[in-house]
């Protein structure tokens, strides 16, 4: 049978190896390759499992506030304040929600928020599309310098503007003691019709559209505007959807400005309503956490639904920011 050469070194010039098989054994210390391989798979699986355990733990920590919000909203107040905390309500109090809809004028705030969101989104989309087109596809003197100025304005804290904008909006007659609902809407909508970040986002998108399309449109006798309308906008639709949703979310979360420019509670938006509503027990004088959390659930659910349906667009719109620093 075959002869096994057990040597540390083989001089291939001297040793004739015709018809012989060489078995190379690679060792590290006392461990052979098989051994090392096994160890590697074991440690790899171990680390993978550990990673999953850690990530799962962190993920649970991340969503704990939401879980707590939901179960607290279904608890009896005594249970919330008890020294023994429970991870599931012993008595499920659906009545908390019934009470919330009586105390918290959800429909009014919701309606205000939707009106403001829709109109500020439309305005923003129009200004953004026009400006992004000019910056991406048209050539004019000082274009790049102007765009740099635009980008630099993103650094200015909005609080700088709030003070004067408040005065400006008041001088337009939109804020004051005799404020009507339309005035309040205008005050909440118009100052937010420009977003430099969205212009930047859409400009990047427009720049990727090949110019051959523009030439083709020209040959077909289309002007710039109809080209923008018929070609560019459909091509950039995903970004426009992202902008719409992010803008909507922004309105849903806006708190400071609506609080400032509205003179009546029923003109305000959902965040103001939530923070402004009193969930205090009329007799005891302490906060009814069950009611409060039920209200936060009611405010959060629409956003969650939006997220479920438009997850891709939201994450893309937000994530786009980081691609180029």
């Amino acid at each position: 049978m075959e002869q096994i050469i057990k040597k540390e070194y083989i001089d291939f010039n001297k040793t004739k190896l015709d018809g012989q098989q060489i078995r190379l054994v690679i060792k590290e210390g006392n461990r052979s390759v098989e051994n090392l391989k096994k160890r590697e798979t074991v440690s790899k699986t171990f680390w993978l499992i550990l990673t999953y355990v850690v990530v799962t733990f962190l993920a649970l920590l991340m969503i704990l506030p939401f879980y707590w919000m939901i179960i607290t909203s279904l608890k009896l107040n005594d249970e919330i304040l008890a020294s023994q905390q429970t991870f599931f309500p012993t008595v499920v109090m659906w009545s908390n929600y019934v009470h919330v809809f009586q105390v918290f004028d959800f429909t009014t705030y919701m309606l205000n928020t939707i009106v403001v969101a829709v109109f500020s989104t439309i305005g923003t989309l129009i200004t953004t599309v026009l400006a992004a087109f000019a910056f991406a596809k048209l050539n004019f003197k000082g274009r790049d310098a102007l765009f740099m100025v635009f980008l630099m304005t993103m650094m200015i804290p909005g609080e700088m503007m709030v003070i004067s904008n408040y005065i400006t909006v008041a001088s337009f007659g939109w804020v004051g003691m005799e404020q009507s609902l339309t005035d309040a809407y205008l005050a909440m909508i118009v100052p937010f019709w420009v977003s430099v970040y969205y212009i930047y986002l859409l400009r990047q998108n427009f720049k990727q559209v090949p110019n051959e399309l523009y030439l083709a449109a020209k040959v077909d006798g289309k002007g710039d505007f109809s080209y923008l309308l018929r070609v560019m906008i459909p091509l950039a639709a995903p970004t426009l959807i992202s902008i719409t949703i992010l803008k909507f979310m922004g309105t849903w979360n806006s708190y400071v400005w609506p609080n400032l420019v509205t003179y009546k509670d029923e003109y305000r938006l959902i965040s103001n309503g939530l923070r402004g509503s009193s969930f205090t027990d009329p007799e005891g004088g302490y906060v009814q956490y069950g009611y409060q959390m039920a209200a936060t659930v009611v405010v959060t659910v629409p956003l969650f639904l939006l997220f479920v349906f438009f997850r891709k667009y939201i994450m893309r719109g937000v994530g786009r920011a980081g691609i180029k620093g």
Partner: protein
Amino acid sequence: MNFKLFNKKNDSTIVNEEFSKSTFTDSTYGELNEGLNEKENITVNIVSRKKVNKNYQVGGVLDQEQSNNWKAWLYLAPVLILMAVFLIYPLINTIAISFMENYSNVTGASDGFTFDNFAIVLGLKPIPGTDVYETNLVRYAIPNTFIIVFVTVPLSIVIALLISVLLNKLKWFQKIYQTIFFLPYVTNAIAVGMVFSVLFDTNGLVNYIFNSDTIWIYNADRWVAMIPLCIYIVWSSLPFKILILLSGLQNVDKQYYQAAKIDAAPQWKVLTKITVPALSPQILYLMVTSFIGAFKEYTAVVGLFNNPGTSPGTYNMYTMVYYIYDNLNIHTSRAAAAAVILFAIILVFTFLQLWLSKRRVTY
């Protein structure tokens, strides 16, 4: 070979940039190429009945005609008008107001130029007509803001980096985990702030788990109350950072990691020598934006405490922006002075970061 397009009307003017070869299909190129030397310019006449085709545009930018400048400005007009009214004018006006004596936001009148607003806000001069000093900004707002900035920004970036590195290692369910970690982004800041104040209630879950009876929110000590505030801010800022870092990680060239594997580099070294430098543009971007964001923190305080202080009548939870909003209506020029100070701080920090990063960021 290069092609040039000429205007039909006037053959001597070159209307456009040079055509690259790729603009033509192979067949046209072949035909045109016959009997022509390299580098020879030829004229291509594009015939069209449409008037709009007078000018042909090729290259990176569509419209090269200077006479069409006005068109671009027309497209920009809505944005420029709105920006002038709601961004540029207010910026200048706010700075002006901060230097006005006895400014009235109703009439817009003032008694002239002064530095007093800054002195009053910084507690260097007593409030006019009294001998009371305004100390809320110096005692509470500025220190609190700086604590929030220097605790939450580094902490959240490090945590986000670790989570995104772990997420990137996952083989299955990566998308699901990614979505879970993004979830806090899609929430109402006020609503979740209220949830955190329930979690940190004296009888709340946190005290129950750690078996303590610390007072975190209502009537809490200022420094203790900073802990839930910072935790909340970190929690709410993680999703954005994880999203950015994870998408950055997925674009890192795999070769670096393979090389590290061959060299049997330890995990932490891979992290510090490959991952962090490769992600440095994203990290810089997050640093700049979240520094600015943390300097402007406001809604977190409203959500958690619903007051500028931990107990009624106190202001120990003031941030710079909270101070500005609280004074906006009555002491407009003081609010303006505080806003100018905030603006200056943010500017200095942003430029400092950009300057420092010039050496450390690898693109």
